[in-house]
């Protein structure tokens, strides 16, 4: 069950519209390492997790990622408000504008719409948690690159917050892997898949 809370996780208050920056940041909405993929990855992987601490971790991080998806949507929405005719012709935004006006659509900055092919659910806790470690690092790099592109302190502040969450999640997934290994209690952790081989 999910219940909506009518607030953001962290404030998004962007004074100056900047469609070119919005066209880059949209990648964290629907790009290969964005927040939509993150939330769907974790909230889907949790069904085959064999241990309670892993079910909890994937549920809780997956839920937080939905809040991050909302923050990225808010950033894109605020960066594209009240655009002039001149601004919609901005290089980098015109291609997005022709298909979506100023709606928020899950796509990569490079134009590919969001795809489940960017994520995996293997049904194996070690493979899934190892993917999750990589996913947090890839998202962290995307935020690093957005910080390189952004010259707006209002945008950079919210992006800096989201980037830091990737580092915390990486730590917790790593701890989750350690707990998983302790639960297996054997030297050869690849002997069975505890989600499948009962």
């Amino acid at each position, binding site marked *: 069950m999910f*219940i*909506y*809370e*009518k*607030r*953001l*996780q*962290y*404030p*998004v*208050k*962007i004074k100056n519209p900047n469609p070119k920056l919005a066209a880059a940041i949209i990648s964290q909405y629907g790009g290969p390492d964005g927040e939509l993929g993150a939330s769907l990855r974790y909230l889907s992987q949790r069904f085959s997790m064999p241990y309670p*601490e892993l079910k*909890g*971790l994937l549920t*809780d*991080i997956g839920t*937080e990622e939905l809040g991050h998806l*909302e923050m990225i*949507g*808010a950033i894109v*929405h*605020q960066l594209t*408000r009240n655009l002039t005719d001149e601004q919609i012709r901005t290089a980098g935004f015109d291609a997005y504008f022709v298909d979506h006006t100023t709606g928020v659509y899950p796509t990569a900055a490079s134009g590919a719409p969001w795809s489940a092919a960017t994520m995996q659910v293997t049904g194996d806790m*070690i493979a899934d948690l*190892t993917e999750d*470690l990589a996913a947090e690092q890839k998202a962290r790099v995307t*935020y*690093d690159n957005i*910080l*390189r592109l952004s010259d707006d*302190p209002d945008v*950079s*502040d919210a*992006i*800096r*917050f*989201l*980037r*830091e*969450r990737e*580092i*915390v*999640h*990486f*730590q*917790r*997934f*790593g*701890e*989750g*892997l*350690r*707990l998983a*290994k302790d639960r297996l209690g054997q*030297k*050869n*952790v*690849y002997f069975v898949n505890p989600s499948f081989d009962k």
Partner: protein
Amino acid sequence: MENTNPNACSAMEGGLPGKCANLAFPYIAMQGMNAERYDQAQALAAGTLFPGLNLPFFKAVKSKMNCDNTALCELMALSFAITELGLYLDTHQNDKEALALYTDYVSLAKEGKKRYEAAYGPLQQTSVTTAGYTWLNNPWPWELEGGNR
């Protein structure tokens, strides 16, 4: 920390700082139970409750979050501390001190939520007030005005 000599470990193990561990398995150090913590406002500004996990990028400006003393920011900070401690507890369920702190934050956030709703209206659709069905009232969170509370 001194590195274990991998030659002192068994054939299925290798050297990690401090001890031997299985080969072909990724290791992230477990965070200790007595890790230093920020207060909730500093935590929200940093993006983590734990100074030890605060690892910023050189291109990032220092947090300039101007979000003090409003009911929304107070609630955001308390809720963030709850989120962050909750993830910590998922992998440290036996840390009684962290659990006690989590419980404290949960009751503070309940109060904070009441103060926010009294000032600005419902946080959840079910928070019906005598003023009518105010759930629909603008601003919604993604709107610029939504952050100015």
